[in-house]
């Protein structure tokens, strides 16, 4: 729990704002079509180092497609993407990003600890180092007691925390999250929102976060990018100037409601709400 004194202090979690800082992700005029359907149309987006950018919009607005283009799981039809100063392909093979999906996508046959070890194993870390790192990550997501459990023995929220630990195990510069809490109940979701902010503050990882929950986007982000469908494009980018550290009280601030309303108005203005 945060004491009143602490809560009063505004701490900017990201690194100091440097005007010329190279963006961790730069998307330039990206278009992506699937046959006849235009999933992304001339999308441009900068993600500054240390920021937490949410992509929000209704289904079909291309937010997941955009995330996959950044991750080099899809190629853009036209336009350019730079991730950590490289092509997305190079960034992927350099393991510059970790990814969390809507489903936890854990391996049933591995214990929780060995799931977190998976990327380290693929990268050739030796056993002792791997184990130490996995335990450290499990402590970060508060699942130390469940190291030897199998994924099927955990709740959905716990499984997703394992997935976050796994994605961050190799300290990637960038964390890409595709509706990670979309399948969870509202209470678990709010708790994981708090935990994620805590982790983000500790690890200083840049996050691109896809969601269709307006409150979630506003609560978490440094910037909310509102997208619209058919064809998918960016409607507006809304900077979130809520004080940090954010906690349960944040959701009761007037400014929080104003920002939620602003996102909602943007969606309504585009006829999406």
């Amino acid at each position, binding site marked *: 729990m945060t004491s009143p004194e602490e809560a009063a202090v505004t701490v900017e979690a990201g690194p100091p704002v440097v005007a010329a800082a190279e963006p961790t992700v730069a998307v330039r005029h990206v278009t992506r079509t699937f046959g006849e359907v235009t999933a992304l149309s001339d999308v441009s987006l900068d993600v500054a180092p240390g920021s937490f950018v949410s992509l929000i919009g209704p289904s079909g607005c291309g937010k997941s497609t955009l995330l996959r283009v950044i991750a080099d*799981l899809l190629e853009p039809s036209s336009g350019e993407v730079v991730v950590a100063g490289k092509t997305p392909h190079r960034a*992927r093979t350099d393991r510059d990003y970790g990814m969390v*999906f809507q489903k936890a*996508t854990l391996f049933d046959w591995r214990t929780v600890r060995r799931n977190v070890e*998976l990327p380290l194993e*693929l990268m050739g870390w030796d056993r002792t180092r791997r184990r130490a790192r996995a335990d450290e990550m499990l402590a970060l997501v508060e699942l130390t007691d469940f190291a030897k459990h199998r994924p099927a023995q*955990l*709740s959905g929220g716990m499984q997703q925390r394992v997935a976050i630990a796994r994605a961050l195990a190799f300290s990637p510069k960038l964390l890409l999250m595709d509706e990670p809490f979309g399948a969870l109940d509202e209470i678990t979701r709010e708790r994981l929102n708090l935990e994620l902010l805590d982790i983000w503050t500790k690890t200083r990882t840049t996050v691109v976060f896809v969601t269709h929950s307006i409150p979630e986007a506003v609560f978490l982000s440094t910037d909310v990018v509102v997208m619209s469908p058919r064809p998918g494009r960016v409607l507006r980018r809304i900077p979130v100037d809520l004080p940090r550290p954010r906690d349960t009280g944040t959701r009761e601030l007037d400014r929080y409601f104003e920002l939620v309303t602003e996102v909602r108005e943007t969606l309504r203005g585009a006829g999406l709400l």
Partner: protein
Amino acid sequence: MTAALLTEVRRLRPPSALPAALTALAVLVAWEVVVRVFAIRPILLPAPSAIAATFVADVPRLVRALVVTGRAALLGFVLGSLGGFAVGAAATRWRVLREGLIPVGVVFGAVPIVATAPIFNLWLGALSIWSNVAVVALVVFFPMMINTITGLASASDSHRELMRSYAAPQRQVFAKLLLPASLPFVFGALRVSAALSVIAAVVSDFFGGFRDSAGFFIKTLMANADYTGSWATVVALCLFGLLLYGAVALAERWSVPWKEQ
């Protein structure tokens, strides 16, 4: 939390063999009573007690029969399963192979082994164990091939995407994802094959020339009107089949511990 609790409860309660044992006992008692009350002739159905007595008296002969037939069943089971897995894995790697093999596999899977047994005797010699092994291996091969292909394809798209996000090379994707995901399917094939391989071995005995084989015994004992003797041989084969099945189930529990049995 509920899921964790449920597994805990399941773990506390040991799996009981009691219902199955009671059922078996009831069947045996009913069988004995029916045979005695209706004075059924042994040619139709010998009493369990008579079969048991013959079984005990014939133990050395039955053991020899099981060695001959069991060896062919076991060798065919191992070789056919290995072959089916290898071809299935290759078919997963090379798409052309897969598209060609699956329909052929389905057709070959429908071939009755009774028909192939005399052919293998002709090719490999009636007095060679390899003709029996070949029949068993052929029977076991296709279920394993099909299940291997299905199993290696069973990993979800999101799991594959995860491995792609790690830029994992194909070798690692196979070893860390596709192979473990396929194991439940592979063991499914092995369990079916355990029973099939004993059947196939006995059928090929009927056509083969081994004087000590189980199939040959059943044939000659029936011809000599020793009905309890052939029933005792059937029981021995049953026990061997159960042993093989049990070994597979044990191996499965050990290597696929994440699946509830």
